[in-house]
């Protein structure tokens, strides 16, 4: 039971990341009809926003270390600590949550600029060309990041208060050995929140209603005198924000490096296709489902029977789903049927 629960949680938090990226991909695809291979790079940019915020906050100066009296010793002390003392230390500690405040506007701008500057010109081009140009863009973005931050992963710790593990076992009345890192639980809660937020936004606001109507029948909505294009551009920005915050919050779990976007992108595309192109619910369901499957497949019991199953399970499931249910789990008729 313990093992089961741990694997379930493991799968859920990984699935949360998949679901968030897949959600953004599906939003861009469902509204603008764009297959965006640069979406993983947006995830990575979000993570590096967190890194940048952390580096800015910890900008430090060399000062004399008072605790050592035998000789002249120096240590690095962040400016914030010097100016504000303990408050400064606390701010540095909360670098990742603070970075979310910056990630949202930055990613929104990047998303809008990307849509107006590049994606706009590719509505009418074939899907193959869209894939190719965004693939090129992804390479450019990740190489720029590498030029600035180097090739090594950069550790970005979570706040100290949630650095440890939560005793879920004793909380649920199970064994005391069952513990799980706090930050991963927070990530799970956070991703659920974002997903519900996006769904509520689309479901209960006028803006969301217009967007859904536009996804169903763009022409008619346009004839009603609504500027569908502008709404869709904003939706693309929103997709970029979702990817960005997903990346920023994932930084403490996986130290960001320049190719993390590509690693997640391939999996997220598989997730989108399994869920069904253009179906938001499908993307989220498939994200969590595949995350959980992957985590269970990495248990030793399964690996003993099928060696290497943890590496290929997602792709295997994708192949089977696509062959049995050609539109994916929840795909609608008429989307990408050519």
């Amino acid at each position: 039971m313990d093992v089961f629960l741990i694997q379930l949680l493991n799968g859920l938090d990984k699935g949360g990341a998949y679901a968030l990226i897949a959600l953004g991909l599906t939003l861009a695809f469902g509204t603008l009809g764009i297959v965006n291979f640069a979406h993983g790079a947006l995830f990575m940019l979000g993570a590096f926003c967190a890194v940048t915020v952390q580096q800015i906050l910890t900008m430090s100066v060399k000062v004399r270390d008072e605790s050592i009296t035998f000789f002249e010793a120096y240590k690095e002390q962040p400016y914030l600590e010097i100016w504000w003392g303990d408050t400064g230390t606390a701010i540095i500690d909360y670098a990742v949550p603070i970075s979310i405040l910056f990630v949202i506007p930055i990613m929104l701008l990047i998303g809008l600029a990307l849509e107006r500057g590049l994606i706009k010109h590719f509505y009418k081009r074939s899907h193959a060309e869209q894939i190719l140009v965004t693939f090129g863009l992804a390479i450019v973005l990740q190489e720029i990041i590498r030029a600035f931050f180097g090739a090594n992963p950069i550790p970005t710790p979570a706040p100290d208060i949630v650095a440890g593990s939560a005793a879920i076992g004793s909380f649920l009345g199970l064994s005391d050995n069952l513990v799980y890192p706090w930050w991963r639980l927070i990530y799970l809660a956070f991703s659920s929140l974002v997903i519900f937020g996006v769904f509520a936004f689309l479901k209960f606001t006028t803006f969301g209603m217009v967007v859904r109507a536009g996804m169903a029948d763009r022409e008619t909505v346009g004839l009603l005198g609504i500027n569908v294009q502008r709404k869709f551009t904003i939706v693309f920005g929103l997709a970029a924000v979702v990817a960005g915050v997903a990346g920023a919050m994932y930084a403490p779990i996986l130290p960001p490096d320049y190719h993390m976007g590509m690693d997640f992108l391939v999996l997220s595309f598989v997730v989108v296709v399994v869920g069904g192109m253009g179906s938001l619910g499908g993307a989220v369901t498939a994200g969590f489902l595949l995350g959980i499957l992957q985590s269970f497949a990495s248990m030793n019991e399964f690996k003993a029977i099928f060696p290497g199953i943890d590496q290929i399970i997602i792709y295997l499931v994708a192949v089977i789903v696509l062959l049995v249910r050609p539109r994916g789990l929840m795909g609608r008729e008429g989307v990408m049927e050519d």
Partner: protein
Amino acid sequence: MMKLTLKNNLFVMLIFSVVVLTAPIWLSPIGANYPDLLQKFAIFGIFAIGFNILFGLTGYLSFGHATFLGIGSYSAVWCFKLFSMNVLPGIVMGTVIAGIFAFLIGYVSLRRSGIYFSILTLAFAQMSYSLAYSVLTPITNGETGLQLSSEDPRYLDALFSVEVTEGLPSTNLFGQLMSGYPGFYFCATLLIIGFYISLKIFRSPFGLKLRAIKSNQTRMRYTGFNTRPYLLTAFIISGMYAGLAGSLMAVTDPLAGAERMQWTASGEVVLMTILGGSGTLLGPLFGVTIIKYFENIFSAMNTSTLNEFFSFLPEFLQSIMVSISQHFVGEGWHLTLGALFMLVVIFLPGGVMEGVTLINKHVRLKLGLRYDDPSVAQSEPSGIEAAPASLTDSQKEEKK
């Protein structure tokens, strides 16, 4: 009398062979005439020609073609280990085994089209890559990569009592070592053969059917064509080209690693084909030459060569230029590649070949010469006219 035009296969092949075989001479002014690079041109040329048969003709974008490259390499190295250091069995085995895998993967993947096909091929490629890295270590030797060793049996060599040399044996063609220029000429010969086959396919009813599938598959189906066997044949042929290229890599350097199967490697061949111009005969070769040449030049550059290059500028301009451009060379070569790729897809979706056509048209119109638009005359039939024309042709074939 034989007309000497580009429509004549023999004439085309003659020019092509002369150009390829004299490559060491005419490439020397730009400093690309050393064997290693020439071998790369030829090998990736074969890879891209094969990819173009699938993507250029049918429009099916496979994102997992590097799998066959890797399989070809592994098979060839195993052939060197088990049977003989002679390269012929190696490349035959590499090609055939890649063909078998292409049949299996193609049979499943081709049940879907469009982006689903891309994702399926990508899924298979990632599966093969992960398996080659982890579980299949007894066959692939995992991260280290498959290498030759002096304890290998080499049954055929033992049978014909080929003399054993000290240290690791090298690949050879009946005694001729496959390194340096002989290696290049061997690859070049295979490139010429591969180009000939591709030429024949492009100009055959089979090629026409593949083009018709690209322009309107539904229409093909409605007229009673089962398109899948044609697609599968194209997929297998292009997989075998990749296998051949992979085994040639093993010939020039007997070592096979899983990173050859990574999806970035598949992306690279897509890139080369698009850059040159997909769906054209020569385009992929241009793409390969351009990318491999600049990869070679750019990744070798560093700050001091840049300083030298910009030394004609005033000092402050020089330092600015160097500090900007240093991100694009050496380690940052991929940045240049990505940017170049985006520019091509945005402004010149037909690749270099489209540029050539445009310039040709412009010049001819300027000079007041007659200009036959090749896109009207033959290839690249546009949606409406294409399907009926190709159907009548192929129906004639069937009736015969």
